[in-house]
């Protein structure tokens, strides 16, 4: 018998009439279709799609930057890019891929799936969620606008001082980097708070933490990592900003400034950051492998615990990025050991994933191919990582292409393979039709081969002594052949991406509708109709175990063999969808976040009055946002729950630096 429960979002049921009259300068947006509905949406699913489209576009941008790099390095003494152009391109390639591709692609999945997987109607703070997206978009546009405004950032994605100080990096290139990253940092921090509260507070009845899907766990751990890592880079960027703009001395060695301060702050952020980049993909793979092996995830508690362990241990390894900096044997020893130890929870996952497939019944559909590809490629990246941990030898490896090989194997072979798997897997749920299997498999093989042809040789180039971040290399170093091979591989990857794009366009036309549960899934999102209605669950489910949906479809006999259960009676639809209260769309997230690039451009060009204006836009929008109720009242409201009164107007007042938590 269906239990009718109140929606578990923070929407208000009754709003004072008085407050509605006074709520904000702008009337509530009403559009449900068209461009305006997307600009004012607070629906986590729409926001997830926005993140997905935007970050995939930047994947094409970052990928083009990679192709330029490979064109320049295909031959010795290349002339495709000047040194200055190359330095901008490699900086932007790294910055783009980390901040504008992998992080927001993960965010796309967090957004779309988390509420669905925990049985919620939306995230805890829907307007704040929209704000995160717009802030991300504006930050991404700002940092890329630098190409047209005098030159893109050229200090490397890691921006080591004092090279990035005003003395050695005159011009605005680095300023764009600083302000762009600060804006992106706001988006990430705010998003982290949102997802932590959502996961901790809005789970459906019966869904204890240890009944959550592994993907949700990884979202939670990644969000905590983001929460604690972003402030550290925020400070590093502020210190650099104050040096560049106001003559401070943080990285001025003549005044006693210490360049290592930058490195410590950056890598204290930077190392947890790489776990932010990989854990979501690990979560995706942990969902896909069991479904396509028709077996549960082997050792669910261990997989979860190892994710948590990585989250904690990831804070204790940052100095391994600094093994050649001259810190002395004590520090270097300690961090060598911690770095080796973090390989343990990582390795454990690999074994658990293989064990999941062991004696399973593997359906090698496209999502599964990418997921298995993840396991295979991430293993290689992980193994080279362990060799780096041998710090004396890292003094040979570091800053060579051997390191470049490592992180591309874990970030591309890992994160991007995992994300691709997720795209193919959840596409039918999100869009209502499946991507072509035939084209998907073609893409997979070209992607897989192209990837290995590009990055496999990087190991050899590194061992052959080729340093990183060089715009060219001379003949007779023994690097010519593998550089050419790698460049060819890069174009194979590019071609596979074109196939993916064609797959998207073609499948959209063909519209192969595959139903609500095409893969015989295990988790709650597959219980929902396709496309997913705005309110997600008509009836909030009650959860009885991990993979609750699977256990509604199957049970096990004494030997552990699957026994199909009779299909459940359709839930009596005694809930009128129109009565489900959803958070209402709003203009304010967009307006508030728009103030950020205004402030940033003003600061970069020294127009401080304009910066103040930007600050006023933000504060004004936040004020109006706080006073606006998160949901407008409905005429046919069903009483209950006792939530009375208007939104607690926790007014946030803002500067770019510290974003207050605001009631959404």
């Amino acid at each position: 018998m269906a239990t009718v429960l109140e929606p578990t979002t923070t929407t208000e049921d009754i709003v004072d009439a008085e407050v509605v009259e006074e709520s904000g300068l702008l009337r509530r947006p009403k559009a449900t279709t068209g461009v305006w509905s997307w600009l004012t949406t607070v629906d986590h699913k729409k926001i997830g799609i926005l993140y997905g489209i935007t970050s995939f576009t930047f994947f094409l941008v970052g990928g083009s930057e990679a192709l330029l790099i490979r064109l320049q390095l295909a031959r010795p003494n290349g002339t495709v890019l000047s040194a200055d152009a190359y330095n901008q391109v490699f900086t932007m390639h790294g910055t783009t891929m980390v901040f504008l591709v992998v992080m927001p692609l993960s965010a796309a999945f967090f957004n779309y799936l988390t509420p669905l997987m925990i049985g919620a109607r939306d995230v805890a703070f829907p307007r704040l969620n929209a704000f995160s997206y717009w802030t991300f978009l504006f930050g991404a546009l700002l940092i890329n606008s630098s190409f047209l405004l005098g030159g893109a950032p050229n200090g490397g994605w890691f921006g080591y001082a004092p090279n990035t100080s005003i003395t050695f990096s005159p011009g605005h290139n680095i300023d764009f980097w600083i302000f762009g990253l600060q804006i992106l940092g706001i988006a990430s921090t705010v998003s982290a708070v949102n997802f932590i509260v959502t996961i901790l507070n809005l789970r459906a009845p019966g869904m204890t933490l240890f009944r959550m899907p592994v993907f949700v766990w990884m979202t939670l751990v990644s969000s905590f990592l983001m929460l604690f890592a972003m402030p550290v880079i925020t400070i590093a960027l502020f210190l650099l900003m104050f040096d560049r703009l106001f003559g401070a001395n943080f990285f001025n060695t003549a005044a006693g400034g210490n360049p290592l301060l930058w490195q410590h702050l950056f890598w204290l952020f930077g190392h947890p950051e790489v776990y932010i980049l990989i854990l979501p993909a690990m979560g995706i793979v942990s969902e896909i492998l069991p479904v396509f092996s028709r077996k549960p995830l082997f050792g669910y508690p261990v997989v979860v615990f190892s994710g948590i362990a990585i989250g904690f241990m990831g804070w204790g390894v940052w100095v391994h990025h600094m093994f050649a900096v001259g810190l002395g044997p004590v520090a270097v020893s300690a961090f060598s050991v911690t770095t080796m130890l973090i390989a343990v929870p990582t390795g454990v996952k690999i074994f658990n994933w293989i064990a999941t497939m062991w004696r399973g019944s593997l359906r090698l559909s496209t999502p599964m191919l990418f997921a298995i590809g993840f396991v295979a490629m991430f293993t290689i990246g992980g193994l080279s990582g362990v060799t780096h941990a041998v710090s004396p030898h890292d003094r040979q490896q570091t800053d060579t292409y051997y390191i470049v090989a490592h992180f591309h194997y874990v970030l591309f072979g890992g994160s991007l393979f995992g994300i691709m798997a997720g795209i193919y897997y959840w596409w039918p749920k999100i869009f209502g039709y499946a991507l072509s299997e035939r084209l998907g498999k073609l893409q997979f093989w070209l992607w897989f081969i192209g990837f290995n042809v590009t990055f496999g040789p990087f190991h050899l180039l590194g061992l052959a002594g080729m340093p990183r971040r060089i715009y060219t290399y001379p003949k007779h170093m023994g690097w010519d052949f593998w550089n050419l091979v790698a460049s060819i591989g890069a174009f194979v990857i590019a071609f596979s991406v074109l196939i993916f794009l064609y797959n998207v366009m073609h499948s959209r036309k063909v519209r192969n509708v595959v139903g609500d549960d095409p893969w015989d899934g295990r988790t709650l999102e597959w219980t929902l109709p396709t496309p997913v209605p705005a309110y997600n669950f008509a009836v909030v489910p009650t959860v009885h175990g991990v993979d609750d949906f699977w256990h509604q479809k199957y049970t096990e006999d004494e030997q552990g063999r699957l026994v199909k259960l009779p299909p459940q009676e359709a839930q009596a639809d005694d809930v009128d969808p129109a009565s489900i209260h959803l958070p209402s769309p709003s203009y304010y997230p967009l307006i508030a976040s728009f103030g950020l690039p205004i402030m940033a451009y003003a600061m970069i060009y020294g127009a401080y009055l304009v910066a103040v204006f930007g600050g006023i836009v933000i504060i004004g929008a936040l004020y109006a946002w706080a006073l606006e109720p998160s949901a407008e009242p409905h005429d046919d409201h069903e009483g209950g729950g006792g939530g009375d009164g208007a939104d607690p107007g926790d007014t946030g007042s803002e500067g770019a630096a510290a974003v207050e938590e605001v009631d959404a």
Partner: protein
Amino acid sequence: MSTTTVDEHGGDDHGHVTNTGLSNEKLAMWTFLGSECLLFGALISTYLLYRGKSVSGPTPKDIYDIPYTSVSSFVLLMSSLTMVLALAAIQRGDHRRLRVWLLATALLGATFISGQVYEFTSFIREGLTIKTNVFGSSFFVLTGFHGVHVTLGIVMLLSLWSMSMRGKLPEEKAEVVEIAGLYWHFVDVVWIVIFTVVYLIPSN
């Protein structure tokens, strides 16, 4: 049968039950404050790293006026007391006292900020600016960040006061004051750490 209980005060998020028993807003504030710990941690670490490393220019010994800063620290500490009183007031429905104590907190905070402004300007007159040396840079950035946080807190408090004046802050919404209070107390605790580490503990 519902597996969750509806608690009138603790676990009630506007009538909707949360798994932790804390409202979304309160949990969000705690989470945010966790992030802020690292923000200030990084700034304080920077200050500590550069202690004693200035090549020229005024040093803490030359320029600090500990008695003066102790007084303004005391003022800020007292503002935490008035904040607690404000929360107690709204929780028992005493809106007049709520407004009194909110205003008192904001005023004490503003006094602290004025004290800081005076301190900064006198340092600048004595030759210590953000450009002078690493001490100047790390001191002004650390205390400046804290000051901005206090200022934003004052704006929040005055907004609450204004809402209460217009009858928009009923007793049921006491949690808003509690959440603002969490932020205010945090900013106060950070100051205690800064005062101790930056002013009180002497560098060699």
